[in-house]
């Protein structure tokens, strides 16, 4: 793994030609990272929502179980969850590619955070909204779908956007379970050529550029949501 060859990589000087030659491969890695992030976020958004609704519904035992789920996932490092899934899932007959395993782990991990974000958003919806829905005999699914969630989601969309950016960076951890994303490429290039300076620098630059652009986008979104209130 990275550590052993990295130790031998001290004192290198920047090689522009070498760096340039890496860019196409690195961009490929970036593209994989973006796909992982989008797929992982899709899982996190859906699972988190289900968890938040179940917890709020106060179904005895089940709501508590999901509360425990949130604490458990938030209380353990993403890297360890990734290792566990990578090592243990095949034992249970679930043989998934590292990529798919990585996406699921990332999605599940973030679902615990999105669940809390949704929860805060739902708690922000005044109790009078629920009461008006009851007074109109609106069914519970309709109350969630048409009254509560539209108001809750509005206030939490920028927060979810920031989690998306964080997930984009966190996905780097997945190279540890041999997912061939951006960091995976760095690792491979490094162990093949014994040069880390260039691939690590390029990776950092790519992470930074995408993060900066995305945060600008989130900020814009936030402003628009506030304005259209």
């Amino acid at each position, binding site marked *: 793994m990275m550590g052993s060859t990295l130790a031998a990589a001290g004192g290198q000087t920047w090689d522009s030609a070498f760096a340039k030659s890496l860019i196409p491969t690195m961009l490929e890695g970036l593209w994989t990272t973006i796909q992982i992030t989008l797929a992982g976020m899709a899982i996190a958004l859906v699972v988190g929502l289900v968890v938040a609704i179940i917890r709020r519904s106060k179904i005895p035992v089940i709501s508590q179980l999901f509360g425990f789920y949130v604490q458990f996932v938030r209380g353990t490092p993403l890297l360890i969850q990734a290792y566990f899934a990578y090592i243990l899932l095949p034992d249970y007959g679930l043989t998934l590619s590292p990529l798919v395993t990585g996406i699921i782990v990332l999605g599940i991990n973030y679902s615990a955070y999105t669940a809390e974000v949704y929860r805060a958003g739902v708690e922000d919806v005044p109790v009078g909204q629920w009461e008006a829905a009851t*007074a*109109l005999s609106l069914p519970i699914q309709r109350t969630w779908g048409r009254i509560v969630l539209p*108001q809750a989601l509005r206030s939490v969309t920028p927060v979810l956007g920031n989690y998306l950016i964080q997930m984009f960076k966190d996905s780097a951890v997945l190279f540890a379970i041999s997912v061939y994303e951006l960091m995976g490429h760095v690792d491979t290039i490094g162990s093949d050529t014994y040069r880390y300076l260039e691939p690590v620098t390029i990776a950092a630059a790519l992470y930074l550029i995408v993060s900066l652009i995305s945060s600008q986008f989130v900020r814009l979104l936030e402003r628009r949501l506030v304005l259209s209130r």
Partner: protein
Amino acid sequence: MISFRGVSKSWGDNHVLRSLDFEVAPGEKVCIIGPSGSGKTTILRILMTLETPDEGLVVVNGGTLWDVKKGGHAKETKEMKATRRNVGMVFQSFNLFPHMTALENVMEAPVKVLKLDKQEAHQRAVELLGMVGLSDHLNHKPGRLSGGQQQRVAIARAMAMRPTVMLFDEPTSALDPELIGEVLEVIRELATGTDMTMLMVTHEMRFAEEISDRVVMFDKGVVVEKGPPAQIFKSPEHERTRKFLRAVLDY
């Protein structure tokens, strides 16, 4: 018809309703008055199923809303849900859906609960909003409306479910003084022009006197006295009523 039989409700050792017996005849317009904290809102909220009684029987139009035995638990039954459909409520703080237009607010329940088709619901919503004087604001969201306009949308929204019982909990007390009149005017029209049963908590004593068939004076979770408005306001029998009226009328 509304009937409370032996209804009790407490929070901790705050006994808000004490074995309350209370009836409202079909079509009757009843105003509930009484000091703050006496349980007026709680009565309406139990009728709207926003609160559960600890004990007692509540029946609306022959349907059982609540039937809780001593030491038992209030349950949401099918009958309760069906019965609740007869009841509408107008809240002190309007509680309009802020992300929907006035029209959408009024159409939501008829389409989803009464299963009217969109066109019919739309037509009825337009009529109702016209009735409360808001024809020019059909497509405005609550944020663009004054408090008085919002409360009128809320009244139209409640009416759209065609309730036979309407509850009003201090419908004008969150409004600026100059907006109270327009809301009272709409309620007055409902009181004189429909045979809905109306139950209203209000501090607008003159209005209560004018529109109600009966006034109920409430204190500490029990009915202190009830009767025609003229009697309650002009010659109350109980000292507590006299004291309460002196306090609010002087104000």
